[in-house]
């Protein structure tokens, strides 16, 4: 019996210690922009979920593909139905880590790079993205823009609309984190 009490308490210590370093954001804003000869396409969502561990510098993003909002609803339908296939692959996820050795316990603005795996359309690809990270008191703000090559994630663009959809899409991320609490 004593064994288990000790084990459980040890586990709890670990859990609570790390939980303090975890910051989350449940309304991360993500948008992407495609500029092609025929038209510009832009979509955005404010329903991204993200977490950041101050100590281990790990970053996690998750967003529902169907939450992206387009100007043209028909385009939004096609985006979900034909290109991203959001029924099969409902989420885009990013798991990464901040490369720089920055002390996030201090206030300040840090230019950082994050390296990690981005999963879109069920296809993993490793990215290194530049961004800025600002810590101020109990909030952390992250801004980043990076490019995603549509073909890298096996998203097929038919030749008929090749002039409407860019090969490389610029993704912008904006998240404001607060300390994680279970409530």
């Amino acid at each position, binding site marked *: 019996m004593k064994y288990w009490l000790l084990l459980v308490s040890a586990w709890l210590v670990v859990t609570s210690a790390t939980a303090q370093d975890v910051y989350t954001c449940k309304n991360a804003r993500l948008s992407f922009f495609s500029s092609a000869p025929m038209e510009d396409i832009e979509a955005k969502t404010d329903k991204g979920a993200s977490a950041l561990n101050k100590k281990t510098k790990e970053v996690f993003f998750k967003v529902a593909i169907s939450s992206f909002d387009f100007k*043209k609803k028909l385009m939004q339908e096609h985006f979900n*139905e034909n290109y991203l296939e959001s029924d099969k692959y409902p989420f885009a*996820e990013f*798991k990464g880590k901040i490369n720089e050795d920055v002390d996030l316990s201090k206030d300040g603005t840090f230019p950082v790079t994050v390296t990690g795996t981005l999963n879109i359309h069920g296809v993993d690809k490793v990215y290194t993205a530049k961004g800025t990270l600002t810590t101020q008191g109990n909030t952390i703000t992250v801004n980043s823009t990076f490019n995603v090559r549509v073909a890298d994630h096996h998203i097929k663009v038919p030749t008929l609309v090749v002039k409407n959809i860019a090969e490389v899409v610029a993704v912008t991320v904006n998240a404001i984190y607060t300390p994680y609490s279970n409530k």
Partner: protein
Amino acid sequence: MKIIPAILLCLAAGTAAQAQNSLEKLFDSTGTTHTRVRDTYKSTRIIQGQSTETLRKHELDFRVAHRFGDAGGEFGGTKTFFGTDNSTDIRIAFEYGISDNLMVGISRSKGAGNLRQLYEGLVKYRFLQQTTDNYVPVSVAVFGNMVISGMPSATDKTAPDYFGTTADRMTYVAQALVSRKFAERLSLTLMPTYVHRNRVSYMDMNNMFALGAAGRLKLSKRLGLLAEYYYPFRTTESKDYFKSLGTKFYNPLGVGLEIETGGHVFSITFTNSTAILENQFIPETTTSWLQGQFRWGFNISRRFTLFGKKDWKK
């Protein structure tokens, strides 16, 4: 002491598990609530009749439908180039989404039954949409229209196109639509329908019920095979009477291909019915597939987003 390694092991396991997984686990429940099933059909029409799809808010749909003449039989063959020299019915429509589930429209069609020169006002409301978790198993919509004929009245007072009053020019359809997307590739729809025609010829029916069934089998992401069938409940007396006059009614059956090309949805259809509107093709189809009296036709839908910038900025 045996317990020390055990604690160390636990600490190590705890840290490792906590590291990346914990960040992921925080959002395990993200977005698992009743996602709506999209794209049961690509268009608001299947072949002739309505689907459970509606336009989105502030979308304008410009539709053109065309049905050619008989491909075979007496009026078909090479002399009319399989019907393409003739057109039995043409419909041009503007339809508009008031909300994501409510649409209205106006149309003008040639008409191919007793009445010609048809002006239509329509409304469709989808009040249930199927969800991926089967919390809502089907999509349900109701459709209604009112059609008035602009043609000159016949002089024969017994003719169906003799208009004693304006009301004689009117026909109506009320319809319930129940759809289910069974799998990515298969959608099926049932359409119980009621057609009311204010004026009909002797022994024809002012009120007629019909049951429609339709389906789509997707062949690829942008191509689907369509089929649509209506069974009108015409009374035996009525059938027999018209048979004695040499007129036989057939049940409308259509098959088609649904092709999506960016902003357009294009359907190539083959139907035995000559008319495009439910008000006519359900009660007044007298042409048969087996006698070569089927025709090819097409539906084109072009959707425009109005107020897109304004809505999107919000």
